């Protein structure tokens, strides 16, 4: 067996442990982005125009600054200045989640706007408050329509999570780099890291595709696949 393969084989358990870290960061960030993004989107569509403008500023802010700048700003800047003791791992989830909330809010906003106006009107006509109409009529439909965009967001966050290696988060990239510099087997190890990312992207987008099919409204968009 060539040295390169041996290096990869030896490093594999270590790299797979890193995949777990990556996955937790990604799932955590997606979840935080979802929890923040849904109300942001609903408020931007149905809220007061002033609130809508504030949210637009929020979106601009989190989409406008590069991830690496944010990570350093938060971890080395803010945490030190305010004397907050957070691990790099936690900061990675928070920062990726905040940025994702900005992107996700626009995925959901697009989905909400694509619904026929009559859906909300019909809910109002039944005597629903705006909040009830949003929760029981708008979101169940809009979230279904958001899954393709969400799948996009997943693959982007997954790849972005590699940047958190700069804070020392022990994810796939950090571990591949660590082993590569120690064993001088750069090519096979970075290649292995790339392959792991490819597999994770495939599994995630495939899973979301299955979810999309599972929650599909009967009789609706039969040509989805």
């Amino acid at each position, binding site marked *: 067996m060539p040295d390169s393969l041996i290096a990869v084989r030896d490093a594999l358990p270590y790299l797979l442990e890193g995949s777990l870290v990556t996955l937790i960061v990604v799932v955590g960030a997606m979840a935080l982005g979802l929890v923040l993004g849904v109300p942001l989107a609903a408020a931007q569509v149905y809220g007061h125009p002033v609130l809508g403008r504030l949210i637009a500023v929020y979106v601009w802010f989190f989409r406008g600054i590069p991830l690496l700048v944010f990570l350093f700003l938060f971890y080395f800047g803010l945490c030190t200045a305010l004397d907050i003791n957070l691990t790099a791992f936690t900061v990675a989830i928070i920062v990726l989640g905040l940025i994702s909330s900005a992107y996700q809010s626009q995925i959901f906003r697009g989905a909400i706007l694509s619904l026929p106006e*009559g859906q909300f009107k*019909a809910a109002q006509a039944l*005597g*629903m408050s705006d909040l*009830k109409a949003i929760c029981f009529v708008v979101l169940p439909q809009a979230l279904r329509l958001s899954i393709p965009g969400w799948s996009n967001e997943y693959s982007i966050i997954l790849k972005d999570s590699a940047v958190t290696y700069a804070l020392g988060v022990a994810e796939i990239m950090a571990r591949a780099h660590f082993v590569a510099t120690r064993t001088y087997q750069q090519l096979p190890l970075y290649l292995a890291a790339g392959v792991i990312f490819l597999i994770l992207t495939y599994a995630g987008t495939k899973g979301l595709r299955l979810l999309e099919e599972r929650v599909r409204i009967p009789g609706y968009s039969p040509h989805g696949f």
Partner: protein
Amino acid sequence: MSTPILKIENVSKRYGKKDVLQEVSLTVNKGDLKILIGPSGAGKSTLLQCINFLVKPDEGRIWLDGQEVHYAHKHDLYAYRQKVGMIFQDFNLFDHLNALENVRIGMVKVRGMGKKEADKRAVMELERVGLKEHMQKYPAQLSGGQKQRVSIARALAMDPRVMLLDEPTSALDPELIGEVHSVIRDLGQSGMTMIMATHQIGFASSLASEIIFMESGRILEKGTPEKIFCHAENARTREFCSKITELYGETR
């Protein structure tokens, strides 16, 4: 005389500089079926949407059962809308819910009924519009006529005092209009109070207690079907009625 179910006084609505409704007043008594006719852009649809405040009127007051509706108070507004059923031209069934769930959702989420009780009632209302065997179907699996009947069942499940029907058959194939008309006819015969915009004047004249002719956001003339269709005073009413009779068949 008893209190009218619905009283509308001087309702006006402007979009920019355009007056869509100008001081429209209307009194609706129990069991009335008022039919709104008039060319498109006359304000029929805006009037109906102003009545349940889906469109906020700029001026005017509305009373339901003698109680003035203060729509700025959210609580009053939501309570009022529950009592005013709305039927839309394009049905607006909730696409993610099947027929049964469409009829049930208002009872459960708005009236706070238990699921079992609401289910029973929903099945009853679907039976009333002849769709009990289709209750598991989703809107995308129903025909236009069936969708409109589900939407009528959905409104009826809220025990409305009055129903507003905004051209309920305009989006339907001609051969599906009959099934919706027969449901509306049954409703009228059971004493439901309704205001309906329509171009189906054959149907209108056989059922209406009053025909209201609107143009440019005003009520130009109103009266019994016989008066409006045969002896209209206003020249515009006569012109419109003769045109629409040509298009939609004889008045009866």
